[in-house]
């Protein structure tokens, strides 16, 4: 797979849709393509975060440690962007990501990510937008959950 295909993959990620293709190409060029075999972990819950990953092909499980043992909470596939929280705010990984099939990713190191955001502020704005959407979604989910609990009681 060449860099052009990676740029195509990046374009399909909501976070990057509004960013100029030449910037995406630079990001693709500067990042490492990393292939994980099924069963390999991208990172483990509690690890220090040093990179985020963009899924180009394949899928992975998101696993959270619970009192009853590991629990798969979600499955991410193509065009997903994971691990960005840990590199943005220096918190340990909040979940484990484990490849379910052979998974091709672009590894965006913390350094690269910040370099890109610094140099191309439009990317920073885009990141903000995506995160804000996420908060909005989470808040509404929380409200729903609260309502559900109060109805139950």
């Amino acid at each position, binding site marked *: 797979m060449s*860099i052009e295909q*990676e740029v195509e993959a990046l374009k399909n990620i909501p976070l990057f849709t509004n960013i100029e293709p030449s910037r995406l190409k*630079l990001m693709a060029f500067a990042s*490492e*393509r*990393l292939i994980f075999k099924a069963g*390999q972990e991208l990172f483990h819950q509690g690890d220090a975060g040093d990179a985020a990953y963009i899924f180009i092909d394949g899928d992975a499980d998101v696993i959270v440690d619970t009192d009853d043992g590991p629990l798969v909470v979600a499955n991410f596939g193509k065009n997903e962007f994971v691990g960005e929280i840990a590199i943005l705010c220096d918190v340990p990984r909040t979940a484990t990501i484990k490849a379910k099939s052979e998974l091709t990713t672009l590894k965006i190191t913390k350094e690269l990510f910040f*370099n890109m955001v610094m*140099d191309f502020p439009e990317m920073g704005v885009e990141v903000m937008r995506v995160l804000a959407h996420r908060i909005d979604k989470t808040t509404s989910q929380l409200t729903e959950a609260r309502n559900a609990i109060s109805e139950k009681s």
Partner: protein
Amino acid sequence: MEPQLFKYIWKHSKKDQVRILFLVLASMPFYFLSLDLPKSIINKAVNSENFAGFNSTLPFMRFELPFGEEIFGRTVILFEGFDLSQLVLLLALCLSFLSLVLVNGVFKFVINTLKGRLGERMLRRLRYELADRILRFPVLHSRRIKQAEIATMIKDEVEPLGGFIGDSIVTPFFLGGQALTAMIFIMVQSFWLGLVAMSIVLVQAFVIPRLRKRILTLGRQRQVTARALAGRVSELVGGAVEIQAHDTSNYERAEISHRLGKIFKIRYEIYQRKFFVKFLNNLLAQITPFIFYLGGGYLVITGQFEIGTLVAVLAAYKDLPPPVKDLINWDQQRNDVQIKYEQVVEQFQPMGMIDPDKQVLEEGNNEVLKGDVVASSLTLIDESENKLLDGVSFSFGVNQRVAVVGNASSGKEYLGLLLANLVKSTSGSVKISNKSLEQLPSAITGRRLSYVGQDAYLFPLSVMDNLFYGLRNWMVNDSPHDTATKDEALRDRQEAARTGNTILNPMGEWVDYKSAGIDDPVQLVPRVTDVLRNVDLEEDVYRFGLSGIVDIESRPDIAESILGAREALKEHLKSIGAEDLVNAFDPESYNKNATLRENLLFGTPRNSDYAGDNLLAMPILREAVAEAELRDSIYNMGLSIARTMVELFTGLPPTHPFFEQFSFISADDLPEFDMIVKRADKSSFSDISISDREALMHLPFDYVEARHRLGLVTEEVEVKILTARKLLAEKLEERDPEAVEFYDPERFNSAASIQDNILFGRLAYGRAEAGETIGHVMTELLDDLGLRSDVIEVGLSYNVGVGGNRLSAVQRQKLALGRALIKKPDLLILNEAAAVMDSQSQNKLVPSIMEAQGEQGIVWTLQRAELSRHFQYIIVMQNGRIVESGTYNELNVEGKVLKSLIAAE
């Protein structure tokens, strides 16, 4: 050393000086004869007046007794000579002239050679003596001196002495004799004019040295300032990190400039004065003829003097100034080297030099130290009258484990140095088995004791040589000589002995393996590995071994095993389904994880002409690329790369880290390539200029398809590259077969590291945890195949670099500990030797070294008081005194100093 240079020269070279003097005297008659002969040729042979007819003859080689007429009243003929006709006489005289020229030439040659040899011998002796003195400097003094300054002294400052010494005694005799002869000649002609000439020479001899006094002082200053400059320059290198980190480069510039200015001033003043002296000298020399002309002329005119006498005086005077001038020059040179000598010698006489008798070579193993170490009222006072140690007394068994604790100003460091006999106490004494430590020769203190300080020095040798450095105490065996080199070696030894140098051969066998408990060469590696394990350095040396190169000549067995490991690795990776982690080298296919350069050369360069960017300039590569019709493809790759780079990187600031990390083109060159790409896009291929083409074609050689992912190496290009690879190999095989060792799956690559030989390929880019996985697998494999000790053996030949700079500080210290352990000392003295390590490593190291030391004793001055729990006896120090001592349990209680020291950590 002799404070006066002449005393030193006379003491060590009088025989040679006298011999040369005699040779010079012996050469004199021949010299004068050769001056006299041209006159005879003209006056006797050429001048026809002497010959009445064609057949008349004159005697040749007729010798008369000089002054015979005056003594005996008649001419006394010693040898009648031969009667020769004019032409034969001319021939005979000319031939005599030629032979005299030859004889003079030979004399000159022999005398100059002897002088040169004498000077060089004295220089060798002087340098050796100075170096010998450095080896006997007390260590506290060595810490204070600047290495560059002391090195300049031995290297440069004594150098002119060698040239001077050969002339030091012969020249004044020779020139003095010449001047005296000329003087007597003048005196004989006219006493009064002679007196005038003499008085002017005396004025010269009186005034000039007086004027030179200031020059000599300046010369001394010049030497000191230049030496200080050398010291400062070495500081610029030594303090490079600090200078850059603190941005003090401008201050340093100012400092250097100031020094140079000072040196300039001194040197300029020397020139001014030197040329003034020269001017005066010439003036005085010219005043004599002035007086001769004026006074002599007056006397002639007034009829008191005959004109013939004046001419004779003037002729005789002509011979006077040159030797006088040369004598004055000689005197100046003498003063100059005398200053140099004094200035150098002065620096090599520190207080407390080690007595040479203590370092006298002593053969055979020495007695084991037993009994007790007893210190009684040890006091150490430094130059500024600080009491570093104050009345320290203690006693413990040589085989005990003793810890010395205290804070930084407690003086524990000095106690360690004193115990190792590296520093002498101001008063008080240390006795080991009832013998005073200071009285013991270094053959005992340096072998039965072992010392490691805080920041141990390593020599730029291999790990192995550093480890055994402490066992190079004396030459066990001379290196074997065959008959051809035997005489040469004997001559070298005699020459060394003649100049007071040691006759020991550094190439001989020096390491005393028996002292390390190695009686048989097979025990060497296991014993070394044990010691490395004791100091926790085994893993490091193992890694050096992995990236080290096997000497296939001496260890074909290792090479064979490594080849087996290559096969085994492949099998193993296949069995765990990880064969995709390595992209193996296959002569028949393109390796997408390797650079284009590697794919073309397909081997490890042995000759640096084929390494790195040098390869691109090799005509042989160009030919192969052209013949494989690869030129266009490489050009197109270069153009694509340039285009992509311009697209990606334009607009980024030139200092952006991406340029360093990812770009094929530096920020400075980017605009240039932007232009090239635009030109290339506009015109057809054939119109592109050669320089543009060259620039583009240099780009793709570091391109790795799997890493950079620009999709440039298509199947068609691959085929061409493989063809070029084959062509290049054929050409190399034919023209430069030793230059490159090609990748061959069946053969060990003797130019590549063990690791590369086992891997035999490139790690695949983009495979998660490829490096870690391969590392684990490789280690396991080598262990299973029993190759671990072989890899360590290769690692032992790793060169540690200057001052050990290829090792980390911790590794250096560990190696120094190994060096101290391997000689099995009776008492191991460690002076905060583990201070550079983190506390976890220290916790591990202390018991490990204790175990290695076995029954023998240890004195360890600890940086962390807590570690003293491992020791049998603890000495606690404060402000140069012992405040308490005892076992850990006794001292680790409330109210004791040790407890508070531990609590403070």
